């Protein structure tokens, strides 16, 4: 190649924009995040593929008993925006590198290490700073690409799961509840009873009339409309401020799955300690129903 050709190639190289981010990888980089009741968990990981390898765990690729990152290249990371509990064990908020110790016939170990930036060939030694718990593998149909997901969500947590080959590792995540569902009988007493209740439009003109009955059951203040509302059914009244409540709707298993806040706020007014009336306000702070205690 002549000096002239060298110069031409160099000029072309400088003229063509670099595409540094374009790279085909055996383990493409992925991420997964989930917010549950205000707690965000985020995983960043490289996603190895089986690529025709039928057996991965207990093979030369992932040895039984070795400390292995459930990902590839740089260690998988897991970040919690608030303190959580994993399988019932408290974990402080923050970012960790994620490791596992797979075993053939017994529980695996999940290890969260505070040193985040580690290459997969540099697994951490055991230390007091680590979070370590037993996790239990389940048999599942073959999964080609290592996948972290949150396949189950409930009001106060969910299931974080790693799945690859024929193994699934479910980890229960419990988040800090933003609301307290329960209420003592003494605190609930001033609100108990039935309220004549009328919907009002933006001009204050009355519309549908109902009765709201407030009870205290299983440690929770509950409301129910008559005529019966098939969507709200009997709902939790969750205290968000003194005399202010937001409705929580139950699923068929009796678990609150959605809280209508700020869409619906019950605001009670008291006389001589006892609630005597209420207003329902929407998220624009408009009154759309009023109620007074039935005699």
């Amino acid at each position, binding site marked *: 190649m002549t000096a002239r050709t060298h110069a031409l190639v160099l000029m072309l190289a400088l003229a063509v924009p670099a595409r540094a981010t374009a790279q085909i990888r055996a383990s493409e980089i992925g991420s997964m995040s989930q917010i549950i009741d*205000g707690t965000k968990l985020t995983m960043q990981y490289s996603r190895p593929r089986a690529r025709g390898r039928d057996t991965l765990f207990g093979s030369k690729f992932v040895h039984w008993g070795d400390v292995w990152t459930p990902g590839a290249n740089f260690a998988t990371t897991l970040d919690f*925006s*608030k*303190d959580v509990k994993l399988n019932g064990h*408290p974990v402080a908020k923050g970012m960790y590198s994620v490791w596992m110790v797979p075993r053939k016939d017994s529980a695996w170990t999940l290890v969260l290490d505070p040193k985040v930036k580690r290459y997969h060939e540099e697994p951490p030694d055991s230390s007091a700073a680590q979070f370590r718990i037993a996790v239990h593998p389940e048999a599942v149909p073959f999964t080609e690409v290592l996948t972290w997901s949150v396949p189950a969500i409930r009001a106060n947590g969910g299931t974080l799961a790693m799945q690859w080959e024929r193994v699934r590792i479910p980890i229960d995540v419990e988040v*800090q*509840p*933003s*609301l*307290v569902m329960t209420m003592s009988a003494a605190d609930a007493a001033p609100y108990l009873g039935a309220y004549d209740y009328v919907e009002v439009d933006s001009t204050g003109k009355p519309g549908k009339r109902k009765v709201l009955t407030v009870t205290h059951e299983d440690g929770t203040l509950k409301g129910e409309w008559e005529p019966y509302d098939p969507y709200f059914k009997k709902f939790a009244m969750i205290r*968000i*401020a*003194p*005399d*202010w409540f937001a409705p929580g709707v139950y699923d068929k298993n009796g678990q609150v799955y959605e809280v209508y*806040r*700020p869409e619906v*706020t019950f*605001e009670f*007014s*008291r*006389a*001589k300690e006892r609630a005597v009336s209420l*207003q329902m306000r*929407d*998220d*624009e*702070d*408009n009154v759309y129903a009023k109620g007074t205690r039935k005699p």
Partner: protein
Amino acid sequence: MFDAHSRRQFLGAFAAVLAGMLLPRNRAWAVGRGLDSVGPHPVPRPGITGEKVLTKEQLESKPKLIALFDDVRAIPEVVDGIRCNCGCTNPPEYYSLLSCYEGKGMAMSCVICQGQGRLAVRLHKEGKSLDEIRAAVDAKFG
């Protein structure tokens, strides 16, 4: 909505709720709401006025909101001390809920900005302090 007796209870209880929020959180998960995900309420800027709040002329397309914007304009020292919880991507120049009622007027189309503004105006008219209004905003929108 509160008579004199229940009003005292309300104010006292709100103060207790506020105090609870200021206490360190228990590792065993304290009762109440955490504010770490949304940040603190802003400090009202000294000398803040409502002169930048959109006017009747600027709200021609939203006549139903004129009264709300007028009410917000009247209490800038309160609304400037409240965080906007709408979750919209507020530009860096947005300082407080008051900012949502200025400039491009996010509050013209965002029901959360409107709801926070109406709540602040209502509670201010009821005689609540800024801290009590903040606690109510946190309870409903936090």
